């Protein structure tokens, strides 16, 4: 029997889609007023669990108890009436309408009135905004607001009813540090009013910071729930991956290697200023910084997507003018972008087509037609050497897992035999186990003499996989340190330190 303390209790939940089970025998409980984090890899069943809790999907079997009473028909309206609201990652806002309308719309729908009374809408919106004390302009168009404020609008909307449980699905994915702090403040405030909060996140450092309890899902099953007192990063990783993943540090075989890249006083208005650094063969140079520090902007300038205003870039001692991507590629750069789905891959094309996309011009016969045999051999070679798990190369790349997709992007660029490989957030949204194998690919690459620049906002990734580290904040390099001398918590503190 569920205890009096539990606001929500799921027992023995099963759910499958077309023969594939998404959740198997899941027992899950939420204590009233706690901040509970749910973590799990892609495919662990997190989203399905959320949909069952919010009533969007019915479970195949199992029981749902809310505040001690069994819920017989879990529909969306039923769960909303029980005080459960979900804010999805896409926020489900109406971007063309104002803040006031977005906040009050849910109430409008419930009231079922034919006419709209604008003063009432403003009143509802004002009341919700006052409950969390955030500064929102009622007449601002939601689509034009920064993501952090949009999220506040979504939270206000959830507050217009009787809110008992708020589920936040990956809320910090695109927030700046300031916005994340604000969100945490709002969440704690709601907790103090007795609202239970469920956070789904894969950012372990955030989970460690605010969770009262953490539940780990893996392959549709509950691995366990641990209390704050037993929370450690390693424990979480072990539960998520199912095995202990040893995190070794990257070591750089020094010894007067050739200088590959010399950047001097690179500046771009409103992007970054006075950036200078060197990169040697075989190094992995990490760049750590939060969103808004200019780190991605720097990468875009080096790769010719958004060229710098002034400053010099010397590759192998020769000064190069980088005004376009073609210049950058000719100079020996390669760039694996942050948004692999929109900027790194042509999703509907096959794995093979994506792999040779950058070098297709070289795979031609003397008559300038594509040499299919050479192309197919090249594709097979890369699939093999990068261990890309795919049935055959003609498969559309969008069907691959995140980790495999990233291998395709990396493969595409490695095929150009770059001197300098820039990786921006290379393991975002990739399973913990797949992450370390991608890190291994990068390390092997460095060992062969390529210079690697690794940009990431996951401090543990950038600290364990680089030999040298540049800290960026507000568009400038703040410090250059030997990675071996710091831990990820040190670095986290350093990039967050107030200006």
């Amino acid at each position, binding site marked *: 029997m569920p205890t009096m303390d539990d606001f929500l209790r799921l027992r023995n939940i099963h759910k499958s889609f077309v023969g594939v089970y998404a959740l198997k025998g899941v027992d899950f409980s939420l204590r009233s007023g706690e901040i509970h984090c749910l973590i799990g890899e892609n495919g662990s069943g997190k989203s399905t669990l959320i949909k069952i809790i919010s009533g969007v999907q019915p479970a195949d079997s199992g029981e749902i108890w809310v505040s001690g009473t069994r819920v017989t028909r879990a529909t969306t309206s039923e769960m909303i009436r029980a005080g459960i609201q979900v804010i999805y990652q896409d926020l489900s806002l*109406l971007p*063309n309408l104002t803040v006031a309308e977005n906040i009050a*719309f*849910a109430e409008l729908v419930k009231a079922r009135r034919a006419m709209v009374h604008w003063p009432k809408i403003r009143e509802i919106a004002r009341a919700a905004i006052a409950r969390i004390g955030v500064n929102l302009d009622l007449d601002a168009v939601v689509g*034009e607001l920064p993501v952090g404020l949009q999220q506040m609008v979504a939270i206000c909307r959830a507050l217009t009813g009787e809110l008992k449980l708020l589920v936040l699905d990956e809320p910090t994915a695109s927030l700046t540090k300031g916005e994340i702090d604000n969100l945490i403040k709002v969440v704690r405030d709601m907790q103090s009013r007795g609202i239970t909060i469920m956070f789904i996140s894969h950012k372990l450092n955030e989970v460690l910071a605010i969770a009262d309890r953490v539940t780990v899902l893996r392959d549709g099953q509950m691995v366990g729930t641990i209390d704050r007192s037993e929370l450690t990063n390693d424990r979480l990783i072990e539960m998520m991956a199912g095995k202990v993943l040893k995190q070794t540090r990257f070591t750089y075989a020094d010894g007067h290697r050739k200088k590959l890249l010399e950047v001097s006083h690179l500046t771009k208005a409103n992007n970054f200023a006075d950036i200078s650094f060197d990169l040697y063969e075989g190094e992995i140079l990490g760049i750590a910084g939060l969103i*808004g520090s*200019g780190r991605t902007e720097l990468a875009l300038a080096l790769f010719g997507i958004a060229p710098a205003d002034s400053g010099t870039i010397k590759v192998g001692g020769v000064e190069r003018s980088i005004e376009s991507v073609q210049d950058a590629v000719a100079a020996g750069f390669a760039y694996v972008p942050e948004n692999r789905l929109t900027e790194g891959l042509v999703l509907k094309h096959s794995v093979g087509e994506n792999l040779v996309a950058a070098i297709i011009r070289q795979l031609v016969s003397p008559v300038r037609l594509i040499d299919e045999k050479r192309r197919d051999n090249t594709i097979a070679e890369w699939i093999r050497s990068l261990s890309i798990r795919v049935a055959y190369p003609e498969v559309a790349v969008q069907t691959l897992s995140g980790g495999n997709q990233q291998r395709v992007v990396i493969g595409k660029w490695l095929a150009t035999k770059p001197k300098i490989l820039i990786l921006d957030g290379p393991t975002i949204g990739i399973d913990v186990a797949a992450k370390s194998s991608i890190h291994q690919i990068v390390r092997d690459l460095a060992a062969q003499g390529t210079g690697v620049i690794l940009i990431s906002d996951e401090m543990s990734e950038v600290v364990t996989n680089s030999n040298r580290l540049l800290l960026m904040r507000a*568009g*400038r390099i703040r410090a250059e340190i030997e990675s071996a001398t710091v831990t990820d918590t040190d670095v986290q503190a350093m990039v967050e330190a107030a200006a």
Partner: protein
Amino acid sequence: MKRLLKYNEFYLAVLVVVLCICITAANPAFLTPENILSFLKTASVNGIMAVGVLFVLIVGGQPDVSFTAIAQVVEYAVVLATLRWGGNIAIALVGACILGGLMGSLNGFVIHYFRVTTIIVTIATLNLYFGLLYVFTGGNVIFVVPSMFKHFATLPIFPMHGANGSTYDFSAMTLMWFAALLLGWFILKRTYLGRSIFAVGGNEVAAQRLGINTLWVRVFVFSFVGVLSGIAAIAHTSIVLSAIPNIIVGHEMEVIAAVVLGGASLFGGKGTIIGTFLGVLLFAILQNGLVLLNFSSYWYDVTVGLAITIGMTVSSYQQLRVRRSRVNVKVEQVAVS
């Protein structure tokens, strides 16, 4: 003042005023009450349909192209029916609304249940309705229509006297146009249904998650444009006093262009009644201006094209400026020694 500059409609209004000034300078007959009332009358057909097209653009961004065919069919049907069975203008209007609404609703149902895009479905119904019209009528022009239409067209509304003693008045068609504009404004701004239309156009998934019934919203929108097309058909018959099977069809692009120029977004979720009014007005003024300035009416299409190009360029430029002004990185200023 600065807030006004944000609005597309403001630039459009300025353009209209400038155009009026230029045309009047070349031919003072433009700014006379008779002339103004005259082109307002002829513009009413497009104007009424434009209100419906606005609704379609708001709900989904893609235009409906079948509304002219609906108008054409309704025109023919009403004329034939009144020739056969008599009746009065009120019955004709009601019949037009019902027939137009039904024909339009078909679009709504097909788009929802078969999940086909608006433009494809309406191209299909355009051809379907138009083709069937020809099949059943042989494409014959009806030269004599019941006198009720003539009476309707010449209803004295706010009669006024001209300088040389002639009388002229507001036509009933212009009033119907203004009524359609008012109705459109009311629905969009003051009803839950209207806000739902915006919601579906802004983010359909979110709208569904909120509990909005997207089927009925779509069916309403397409029925509404059908009803308005029916009313426009009556207006058209009253003006030309004949039923010509291929005269309304062919103007779809013009009406859509007027609505888009008025600020409706092709991505959905955006558009205003006043913008739609100004858009239609602009094209009406252009056409009238060409006549008064003795230009060949073939220039009309050229001017329409120019108007659209300039309009789109201005609105694109505006959006680009907004995007560029968003600063992504606040670079810290350090004192350089």
